């Protein structure tokens, strides 16, 4: 009998069955032997032996079962421990996630703050400069009309024709036919025909101030697309994108 491969429960049950069968036989034999003489005298001792053997097996199997029970209990305890640790880990995980979230928010807000600080710092101008500038632009009647202005006064809030031609730009470009009254700008200045009221007290070309100012570099080819998108035609850009999407869906 390959008892070692069966489970303890099966082993116990089969032993119990054997015991039951053997005890039933014994009792039958005893019952028969009551009525008549023992036909086989060795049989009852055989059965008794088998019974004793089965009992021994039973005891052993019971011991094994007990031990298995202990082991099973330990297993259960350990499982509970494992569950507890699992839930601990999960809670720690949750807390970690929360902490990460809070830190991420804090970092993000700090970055935003830094950005706005940087922006404010960049835009800061000394009040003295602003006042100086305000002085300049109002003294020359560039942003505020002179108090004696009446319609007919040639002064304007923008550079007039004469002023434009009198500047560096006007002198650099050749204006053969479009001079004022047919005269070239150099002539007008040289002939002193510019009325006093038009000679600006403060040159709008500001060559005296800007001796050290340089314009930003640029590629000489304005034909090329500038980086970034143009403000113009935001509607057109959207129309173009829908066109392209429709064409791509066609190709699908």
């Amino acid at each position, binding site marked *: 009998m390959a008892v070692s491969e069966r489970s303890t429960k099966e082993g116990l049950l089969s032993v119990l069955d054997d015991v039951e069968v053997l005890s039933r036989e014994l009792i039958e034999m005893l019952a028969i032997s009551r009525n008549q003489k023992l036909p086989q005298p060795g049989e009852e001792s055989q059965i008794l032996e088998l019974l004793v053997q089965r009992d021994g097996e039973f005891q052993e199997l019971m011991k094994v079962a007990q031990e298995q029970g202990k082991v099973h209990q330990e297993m259960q305890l350990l499982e509970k421990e494992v569950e507890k640790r699992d839930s601990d880990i999960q809670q720690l995980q949750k807390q970690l996630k929360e902490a990460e979230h809070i830190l991420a928010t804090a970092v993000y807000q700090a970055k935003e703050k830094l950005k706005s600080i940087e922006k404010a710092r960049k835009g800061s101008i000394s009040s003295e400069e602003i006042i100086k500038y305000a002085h300049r632009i109002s003294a020359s009647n*560039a942003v505020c009309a002179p*108090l004696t202005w009446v319609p007919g006064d040639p002064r304007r809030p923008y550079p007039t024709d004469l002023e434009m031609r009198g500047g560096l730009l006007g002198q650099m470009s050749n204006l053969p036919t479009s001079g004022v009254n047919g005269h070239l700008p150099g002539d007008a200045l040289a002939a002193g025909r510019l009325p006093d009221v038009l000679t600006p007290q403060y040159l709008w070309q500001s060559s005296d101030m800007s001796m050290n100012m340089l314009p930003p570099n*640029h590629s000489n080819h*304005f*034909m090329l697309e500038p980086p970034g998108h143009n403000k113009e035609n935001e509607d057109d850009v959207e129309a173009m994108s829908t066109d392209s999407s429709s064409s791509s869906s066609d190709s699908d």
Partner: protein
Amino acid sequence: MAGAMESEEQARIRFQLELEFVQCLANPNYLNFLAQRGYLQEKPFVNYLKYLLYWKDPEYAKYLKYPQSLHMLELLQYEHFRKELVNAQCAKFIDEQQLLHWQHYSRKRMRMQQALAEQQQSNAAPK
């Protein structure tokens, strides 16, 4: 993609030219002139206008005598505005509005002076 290296003298001259040009943009008649000759539709010119936006920086803006030119420059970035400038009425309207705005402060000051004078008169009168 920088162009050919220009000498400092050339750069200074270019600064002057761009300073003058950007301020000329405050003149609506000049803008009308440019629009009617089709300059405002040329792509290189539009890109140049976008490049000129550097005058908005305070370190450059302080050289502008006519600050209205910056507003016009910003408006010129929009194609719709550039298209509208072809009409002489548009230029005239802008001119009128500029003049009215220009006179705003002097009118206000005159009103205040008048009000002050009236007040002084009414204070001096009952004696």
